[in-house]
């Protein structure tokens, strides 16, 4: 017997990682899976960059006096934290990474509709990112991530134009991703995969794409006008020249409120997948959950005025915006109720992705309900521009979106890499993140209600206890965020092989190898059943 055949390790199957190792093959790749990985690396970089700024903010707020940084530096810190986190992490996070990676796999397609355009989106994102990095290293911008005029257009002495350009450019990456997803979902579905057999992840990405395509261009032209105003004294938002600064706020929030749903809808899609898998049940009221995504996308375009209750807009307008804001709560609540109903009598297992999904439901509920406080005309006057709103949107963005992102990465990591991570460490990290998150942001609700305004680096001494608590929580949260970076990377070295379907999950992405072949499917699958057919016998088995 030839000794070589005994000792030889079986050659790993061809997959999207190992079919070509060259740098060029990555930088010119048209494979949606590789582009997803490129996005994962880049948004992780920006997440930690934005995180460093958050650390500095929390350190400054440890004491009432302004001792770590000056007021100007503090203004730049919270602005850059917002810009980096919103435009370079939250907006692309789940769509660009998991949407890219998973949509073709879930649809039974070999790639997205426009692979070259997809690669272009990543490059556009990176060019926008370079502008932003340039701004960071040149000293930052101090207008707040909202770029309110006329401060941003006339008075600010920081790098407004470069920062605006960075956001403008990244916007195009978002639009092109949306266009790509819409065409893919419409036309690239496998035979038999009807609209109501689609996983809810796909529905939520469809709704997200619509917002990307319809909303992003509005903020793009708005930002162009701000930049032109700074360059040429155009006057569109300058009251001295007859312009109206409130027009800026209308145009800005016309995009930036729906943008919240660009951030949260994909997360909701992830939660539906995870809840169904780890309850071994169909999602309760599938069609309601699917349509609630569309309803959120549609209603989301009609509520922007709730950011402007204190600007002197007409009371009647405020009334209507307040009412519409309450209406958005209905489709959001439908999702939460239906997830909960799915859990009922399910065969639940508390794997790491499920921990994040359950965390999401609780934290998003708090974030969403406090949003209703802010939608009340009277109450909003009291808590407007206080830490209450800071806490509210961090419950939605971090408690919601980041939890969903972490849930997604723990759920699909085996699919992406082919390896299992340490479940033990992952559960510990999830617990640390949950505790750290609540400790950071819950005190901020109280601070805001007591009247501590946002965006100041000094505060009265009576607020110190709660601020210390918040900073302590932030350090726990920061530590929690570092952990997955280590055990996930370690799993590549020492992880157990995952196999095609480590969670016994349903869905086309679990029928192919982990990691998948460069072209996903050897033969195009034919779909004969709806999503989440976990079946009653499975529940009994559990």
């Amino acid at each position: 017997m030839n000794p070589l055949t005994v000792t030889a390790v079986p050659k790993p199957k061809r997959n999207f990682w190992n079919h070509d190792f060259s740098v060029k093959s990555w930088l010119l790749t048209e494979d949606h899976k590789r582009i997803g990985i490129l996005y994962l690396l880049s948004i992780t970089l920006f997440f930690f960059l934005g995180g460093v700024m958050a650390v500095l903010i929390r350190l400054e707020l440890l004491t009432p006096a302004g001792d770590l940084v000056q007021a100007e530096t503090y203004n730049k810190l919270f602005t850059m934290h917002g810009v980096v986190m919103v435009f370079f992490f939250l907006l692309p996070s789940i769509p660009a990474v998991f949407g890219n990676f998973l949509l073709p796999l879930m649809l039974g397609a070999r790639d997205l509709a426009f692979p070259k355009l997809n690669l272009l989106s990543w490059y556009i994102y990176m060019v926008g990112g370079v502008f932003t990095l340039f701004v960071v290293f040149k000293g930052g911008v101090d207008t707040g991530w909202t770029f309110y005029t006329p401060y941003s257009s006339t008075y600010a002495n920081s790098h407004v134009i470069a920062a605006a350009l960075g956001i403008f450019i990244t916007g195009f990456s978002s639009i092109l991703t949306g266009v790509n997803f819409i065409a893919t979902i419409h036309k690239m579905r496998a035979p038999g995969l009807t609209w109501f057999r689609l996983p809810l992840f796909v529905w939520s990405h469809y709704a997200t794409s619509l917002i990307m395509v319809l909303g992003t261009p509005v903020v793009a032209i708005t930002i162009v006008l701000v930049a032109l105003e700074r360059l040429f004294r155009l006057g569109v938002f300058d009251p001295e020249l007859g312009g109206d600064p409130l027009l800026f706020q209308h145009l800005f929030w016309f995009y930036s409120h729906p943008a919240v749903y660009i951030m949260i809808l994909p997360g909701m899609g992830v939660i539906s997948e995870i809840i169904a898998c780890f309850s071994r049940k169909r999602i309760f009221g599938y069609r309601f959950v699917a349509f609630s995504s569309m309803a959120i996308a549609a209603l989301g375009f009609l509520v922007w005025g709730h950011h402007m209750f204190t600007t002197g807009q007409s009371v009647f307008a405020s009334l209507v915006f307040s009412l519409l804001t309450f209406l958005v709560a209905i489709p959001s609540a439908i999702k939460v109720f239906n997830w909960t109903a799915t859990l009922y009598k399910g065969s639940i297992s508390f794997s790491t992705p499920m921990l994040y999904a359950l965390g999401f439901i609780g934290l998003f509920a708090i974030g969403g309900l406090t949003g209703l406080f802010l939608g009340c005309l009277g109450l909003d006057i009291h808590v407007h521009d206080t830490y209450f709103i800071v806490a509210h949107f961090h419950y939605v963005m971090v408690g919601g979106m980041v939890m969903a992102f972490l849930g997604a990465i723990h759920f699909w990591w085996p699919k992406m890499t082919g390896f299992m991570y340490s479940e033990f460490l992952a559960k510990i990290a999830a617990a640390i993140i949950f505790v750290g998150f609540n400790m950071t942001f819950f005190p901020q609700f109280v601070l805001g209600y007591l009247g501590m305004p946002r965006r100041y680096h000094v505060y009265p001494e009576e607020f110190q206890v709660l601020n210390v608590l918040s900073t302590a929580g932030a350090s726990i949260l920061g530590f929690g965020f570092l952990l997955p970076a280590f055990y996930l990377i370690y799993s590549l070295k020492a992880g157990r092989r995952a196999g095609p379907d480590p969670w016994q999950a349903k869905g086309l992405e679990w029928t192919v190898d982990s990691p998948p072949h460069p072209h996903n499917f050897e033969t195009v699958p034919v779909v004969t059943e709806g999503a989440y057919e976990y079946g009653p016998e499975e529940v009994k088995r559990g």
Partner: protein
Amino acid sequence: MADPSTIPLAHHFEDQEQQHETTAIGMWAFLLSEVMFFGGLFTAYLVYRNRYPEAFLEASGKLDVTLGTLNTAVLIGSSLTMALAVRAAHMGSRGGVVRWLLATIIAAGIFLGVKAVEYSHKFHDGLVPGANYAFKGTASADTELFFALYFGATGMHALHMVIGVGLMAVVAWRWRPNNVVQHPDGVEVLGLYWHFVDLVWIFLFPLLYLLGRHV
């Protein structure tokens, strides 16, 4: 018709029909996005026109209607030549595609040239917003906003035309005789884009140039 078996099919599509419909739907989605982009500008225009009707009326009178009308005719003509390029692509006529695209490029060049002449007139007359703004008239204070929106909107429109010309040049080069067979979808979606650019102008022209012409 061109022989369907020679038209290239990308690896991730099942058949020509799927490829064609996917490409078209992608372009329509992108154009929706463009509608919203110009929608922001039109909103600003409507807000200020309602607030300062006299100033807008007076400022609009300073625009050159003759040149504007000429440009409108040129642009509508270019939509025709573009439609003929699309038709040629579907018939597989390479010469036709190249010729009609060149004709469209020339029309676009005339439009942009006329636009440049108009811009330089405004510059000489001190009608460019900024430090040298010198409008002579009764409602001078708020006319600057009109010109801000005029330059903003027509500038964005011109930028779209320049991009279109660049794309047409690339597509025409690809359709040169003795190159490999090209997909007609490319010309078709380029046509959609060009008609959209044309349509934006059809709205801009009356809103900016023809204000108050009826009196």
